[in-house]
């Protein structure tokens, strides 16, 4: 028995010759928004790993994937041996702790508001070593958002209900990135009375708030739109006037990254129908 054990051990140690003694290099992004920021900062040549959810821009498909966002393959991450790993938010907290334990430089870069997108762009550009590029990108986004604001100056603000989940029915609360987007797009978020990032709203809540525009971002999609039309009838302005929209290409609206101005423009176009 001991003889076999010895053979197995020798076999294992022979196979495990150290090949990753090279010093760590490059970045892994575990957040689609951070991936977009890295590409916009022209730091994508140093991006060695992304997640299955990182789908923008085009070049991302050539990057090695480490799996999904909250439960990626830690082994793959170790294999790619990055210098810095970017995470985003609570769901990845446990993962971040494990990666920190393993000795990686883990940088948390979740954006829960437009301001935090700017902060994260600047932070990331410091890390990638081109802070000027970061400054430039932030002022570019700011300019675009200001441009949209100018267009909306003479329009009335509309009451908007945004649905981010249909089961359970949920909408973005005051402490959410989407609340910011709605505001900048010339809307008033009817769920903003709640001091949290999401609100379990329900259909009665929608009737009570009587929004002028309803945006469906949840996966429930078209069927949801039909149901709302039927259920809300004349009770809700948005249903009566046919201002219920299911947004198919919603990534720029929901993703707190450098395409935020594009998302705001898209939402403004829907809210104010231009």
């Amino acid at each position: 028995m001991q003889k076999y054990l010895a053979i197995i051990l020798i076999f294992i140690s022979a196979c495990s010759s150290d090949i990753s003694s090279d010093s760590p290099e490059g970045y892994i992004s575990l957040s689609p928004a951070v991936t977009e920021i890295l590409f916009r900062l022209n730091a994508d040549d140093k991006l060695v790993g992304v997640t299955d959810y990182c789908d923008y821009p085009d070049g991302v498909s050539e990057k090695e994937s480490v799996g999904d966002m909250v439960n990626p393959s830690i082994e793959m991450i170790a294999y790619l041996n990055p210098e810095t790993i970017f995470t985003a938010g609570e769901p990845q907290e446990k993962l971040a702790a494990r990666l920190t334990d393993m000795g990686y430089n883990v940088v948390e870069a979740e954006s829960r508001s437009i301001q935090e997108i700017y902060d994260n762009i600047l932070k990331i550009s410091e890390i990638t070593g081109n802070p000027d590029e970061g400054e430039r990108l932030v002022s570019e986004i700011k300019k675009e958002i200001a441009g949209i604001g100018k267009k909306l100056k003479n329009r009335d603000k509309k009451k908007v209900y945004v649905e981010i989940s249909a089961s359970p029915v949920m909408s973005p609360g005051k402490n959410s990135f989407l609340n910011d987007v709605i505001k900048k797009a010339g809307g008033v978020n009817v769920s903003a009375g709640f001091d949290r990032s999401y609100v379990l709203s329900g259909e009665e809540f929608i009737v009570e708030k009587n929004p002028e525009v309803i945006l469906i971002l949840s996966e429930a999609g078209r069927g949801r739109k039909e149901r709302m039309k039927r259920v809300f009838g004349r009770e809700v302005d948005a249903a009566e006037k046919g201002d219920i929209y299911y947004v198919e290409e919603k990534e720029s609206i929901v993703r707190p990254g450098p395409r935020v101005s594009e998302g705001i423009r898209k939402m403004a176009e829907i809210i104010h129908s231009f």
Partner: protein
Amino acid sequence: MNYMDKKISILLFFLFSAVAVLFALFTGAAGWGPGSSYIMWNIRVPRVAAAFVAGAGLGASGALLQAILKNPLAAPYVAGTSAGAGLGVALAAVTGLTVLETPAGFAGGLIVTGIVFKMASYSKRKTPESLVLAGVVMSSLVSAVTFMIMVFNRDTVFRILFFQTGSFQFVSQRALFFSAVLITAGIVFSLLYARELDVMTQGDDVAVSLGVEISKTRKVLFAVSALMVSGSVAVAGVVGFVGLIVPHVVRFILGATHRRLILLSAVFGGGFLVFTDALARGLFAPMEIPAGIITAFFGAPFFLYLLIKG
């Protein structure tokens, strides 16, 4: 089955587990083969160890519970341990004491199992069924509280969900060591009661006439199994199916002699979970699918086969 066949079957169980461990050590997103010694020693070995420890604990406690509850459907989670552990983790997560998640899960499991046992002991008919019923009802109640917490704290949902689907990725070395010691001790301890369990399967009357203190034995072994389940939950979260099917497979092949049943349920349970976890991370690498899916996928047909043949 004659003596020689049994010897060979026992050897095959050990062999399966040894092969499973080797297979798992050479499977991973970083390619076939160990890649680098860093990945081998810091990622694969702890993970394989965690899966083995959890599987062994679940297998052994499943064998124990099926014997003392006299119920073929008894599984390690029937006594409310997993529901209690889930609540413990949820409470730790929402109060921000995330470092205490593993101890809280461990304690939660034990506390709820203790309550279940206490409740069952109040029932007039002190039968194994009252224990099973108390466990099922307490589990629903405790899970309802956990879900309530999740609904009102959506930000922490992920931490709780993780735990409930089971994952070997985030186990700390301390938790792993603690659980390994606990589960090994539990297995050794329950082996001391193997003879009593053998007698008890003949019926309570027979057992009493042969001098077995039934209620004491039941109480002690119930506690031992709760400790082992909590230990496995601490390293792996809630992994279903293993604790239910592994003892049945061993019993089908080797009969219900408890010394063998408990020991081999531990060995086979460990090997089985190591094998399914290796597939879970290897099949669609780098995407990891929950080990529970693979466990049921391979376990269910195998079990049905044994059921029909046996």
